[in-house]
């Protein structure tokens, strides 16, 4: 450690890079960050009421003043790369700009100060919003009805697969298997497994697409459903979707569409019209709600009318201009979450869809596809395209060319940080060795895409000329390469 400015308690900085001690390291006995004010009722005598159930020592939380809390979290916040800071081309994640009006809407006291057990008469605004959002999602997707309550995409998958199981059970046999292409998200097989289905993996064809003959071969009357992502995780439209759907339907199976990539389809394809029976939406991807460092999102599920009876509870109904809530149904799979799901996320998505309208959504899809194709065109040749087919909203390269210089995808990803970019998704889909999966989204302009592509091309040159520079990256961010093996081995999971 040379030339480093040091202060004994860690409050000093090196430039503007703050080394921030933990909350616990900053704790000082007797400090408080809140003041409760005087009680107007007598203080309960804990010992008399709870006896031996009284906690013997106060919970060992840190003791800090408000200013400590403010500085701590402000300093930590600036150690993050974020969408608001720049380009965030994570494939499959649809990191588009998060409109501010949606945050303002979600924070309106008329929404935030409502309780789930208020009488339905007193929450007509909430119910109308939910009812209309269900309708709009149905219109966008061509599905007949929608539930809003799943808290995330994979929670939506679970909900959808539970409905599929309920549907087959109502026909006399829940069936035992689910077909899933090897290019699928890991959540697909994990969700199917919770519903007690055996997962049968379907190998993608040489063109990266679902091969109808492989589906035909695997298909029998024990198959409950096939789970398909379309466009698939290579960004390629599954042109045999309908053929595959017909094969599955002919044996009584259902088609589950993973809607993670709906941003490629709005205004062009309605999955309900081409054979999907169940699909989930990722409101935090397609409809611009913030990702929050991992959540909360929301994963509504749409179904065709044959599956509507199985939708989870509660259901919101409209009777003339009045909305009511039904909590009971003989056929429903039941509740999949408490209350009304991640309601504030629903408010944000509703706001987004209302602002864009039909035309805006279609334009968003068009510009997302334009951006992905532009990046693909600019980086082809410099990076290897394992599947050379036209793409929609994202494109997948790999590190085959750079492997010759001993450089791997992970190195390229880390080096991108030195150029000020968040790396793309790496090592996914699993069918591509060393995958680099780039999804720019529609909210980025040409000059940003150019800077990103220039950085990628510069890194490719570095791989040839100075591979060690890339292999030891990142050099400039807040932390250099982090030892993930040590973390897993030593398991220090709390202070």
């Amino acid at each position: 450690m040379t030339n480093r400015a040091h202060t004994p308690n860690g409050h000093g900085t090196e430039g503007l890079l703050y080394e921030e001690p933990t909350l616990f390291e900053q704790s000082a006995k007797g400090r408080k960050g809140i003041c409760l004010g005087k009680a107007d009722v007598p203080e309960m005598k804990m010992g008399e009421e709870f006896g031996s159930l009284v906690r013997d020592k106060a919970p060992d939380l840190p003791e800090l003043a408000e200013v400590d809390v403010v500085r701590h979290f402000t300093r930590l916040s600036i150690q993050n790369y974020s969408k608001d800071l720049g380009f965030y081309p994570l494939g499959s994640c649809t990191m588009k700009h998060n409109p501010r009006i949606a945050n303002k809407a979600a924070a309106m006291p008329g929404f935030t100060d409502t309780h789930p057990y208020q009488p339905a008469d007193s929450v007509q605004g909430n119910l109308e919003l939910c009812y209309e959002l269900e309708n709009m999602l149905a219109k966008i997707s061509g599905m007949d009805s929608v539930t809003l309550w799943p808290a995330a995409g994979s929670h939506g998958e679970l909900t959808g697969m539970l409905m599929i199981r309920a549907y087959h059970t109502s026909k006399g046999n829940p069936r035992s298997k689910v077909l899933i292409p090897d290019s699928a998200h890991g959540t697909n097989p994990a969700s199917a497994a919770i519903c007690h289905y055996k997962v049968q993996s379907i190998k993608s064809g040489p063109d990266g697409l679902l091969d109808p003959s492989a589906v035909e071969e695997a298909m029998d009357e024990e198959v409950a459903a096939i789970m398909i992502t379309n466009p698939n995780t290579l960004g390629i439209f599954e042109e045999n979707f309908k053929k595959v759907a017909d094969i599955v339907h002919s044996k009584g199976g259902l088609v589950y569409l993973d809607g993670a990539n709906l941003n490629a389809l709005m205004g062009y394809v309605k999955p309900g019209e081409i054979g999907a029976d169940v699909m989930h939406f990722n409101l935090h991807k397609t409809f611009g709600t913030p990702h929050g460092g991992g959540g909360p999102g929301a994963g509504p599920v749409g179904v065709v009318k044959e599956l509507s009876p199985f939708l989870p509870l509660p259901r919101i109904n409209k009777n003339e201009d009045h909305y009511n809530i039904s909590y009971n149904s003989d056929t429903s799979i039941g509740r999949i979450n408490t209350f009304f799901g991640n309601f504030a996320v629903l408010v944000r998505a509703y706001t987004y869809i209302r602002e864009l309208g039909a035309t805006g959504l279609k334009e968003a899809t068009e510009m997302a596809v334009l951006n992905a194709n532009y990046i693909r065109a600019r980086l082809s040749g410099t990076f290897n395209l394992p599947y050379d087919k036209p793409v929609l909203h994202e494109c997948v390269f790999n590190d085959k060319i750079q492997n010759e210089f001993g450089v791997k995808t992970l190195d390229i990803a880390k080096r991108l940080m030195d150029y000020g970019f968040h790396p793309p998704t790496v090592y996914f889909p699993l069918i591509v060795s060393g995958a680099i999966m780039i999804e720019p989204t529609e909210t980025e302009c040409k000059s940003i895409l150019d800077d990103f592509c220039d950085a990628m091309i510069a890194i490719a040159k570095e791989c040839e000329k100075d591979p060690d520079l890339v292999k030891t990256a990142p050099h400039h961010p807040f932390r250099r390469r982090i030892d993930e093996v040590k973390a897993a081995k030593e398991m220090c999971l709390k202070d």
Partner: protein
Amino acid sequence: MRYLPHTEDEIQQMLQTIGATDVESLFKSIPTEFRSKSNIDIGDGCSELELTEHLEELTLRNSCSSDFASFLGAGAYRHYIPAVVSELASRSEFVTPYTPYQPEISQGTLQVLFEYQSMIARLFGMDVSNASHYSGATACADAALMARRIGKKRHKIILPDNLHPEYREVLATTLGVDGLTVIPSKDGCLDKSKIMKHLGEDVAAVIVQYPNFFGIVEDMSEIATSTHNAGALLISVTPEPLSLGILNHPGQWDADIAVGEGLSFGLPVSFGGPTLGIFTTKNKFVRQMPGRICGKTVDVDGKGSYTLTLSTREQHIRRERATSNICSNQALCATTAAIYLASLGKQGIRELSLRNASNAAYAKRVLASVNGVTLPFNSATFNEFVIKTNKPAADVIQALENELILGGVDLGRWFSNMNDHILVCCTELNSKKEIDSYASILTEILS
């Protein structure tokens, strides 16, 4: 459209680079017969001003807490949110990143999650916490699935009916009713002897709620011992973890998995969501735990660093053999909870917890003195309690609403023999004046 920065010139230049004539042609990989014949039938978009007016109009069709004196709780507790919490948690550096897959440029979120895990583990008295689940109810369901994995051939899950009814419903939906045994409570408490009768070799776990759905604080040591003696796991569920400011923590009675709902920690009730699923367990079960976990490590320069870890449990690696299907979680809610808990601190959480209990104790005493009200259960309660009225609960609640009081939750909704029982909640937001006025209006209604 204002979220699309492209100029017409740029679009043309980009198309030229791509070698395409127009944007439409980029969609030619979609066979024509798949193209939707009709536009999306949701009408035109609107301006931000129009949108704001529309949203305000929607909120006007809601009545919110400020219009009422509210005594609603039942798993969604209203609390004062210090200004510092909402302001810090809405910093876009926390709001707009993805899951911190690239730790070198995500140390902020990662350190916050590490501190969240640390504070939650300390509060619950457990070895380890994950970085969040969706909600208390989904955490409870995933805990039951985890107990079945650990129990191998053990399949049965025992739960009392004083576990939140919506949590019970989520359990039934997720696990299926087969193997779920619901034991009716006795005087609002666990029927321990009945539970013990069911504790055979096929039991994977016993689930208990602490404090329970009726607000009662039960001593769990005995049931914990019996459960462990039978070789099963004890899962503890705490929808109001603020209670742990003054009450014994689940670690003290040796819970194997302790879950909870973190909505009380700085999040607005917001019609019930987003919630925050709290998930903690013992070290020996950490590899069976669902969800993201943040761990401490170093970078190549030896600087202390944080990263997501133990990911071989997770769906993106292990697919159908993963410990859970969870991917997106409630990270921003965990961030909010971390800021809230850091603000409260060691003394603050105790004081606030006691304030909630004191307000509820006062309300319980005052309401119990109203003619026509009795207390069906006589056990100690934290922030909630049940009253029995001499008129149907639904009518009483409606009459109270007419006087701008949301008097509580009608328990007849879930318990067919409790149509004259109301679950009443008090937090620091309920003043003495509000409570006194509830009592006097209730006196009129019941006379």
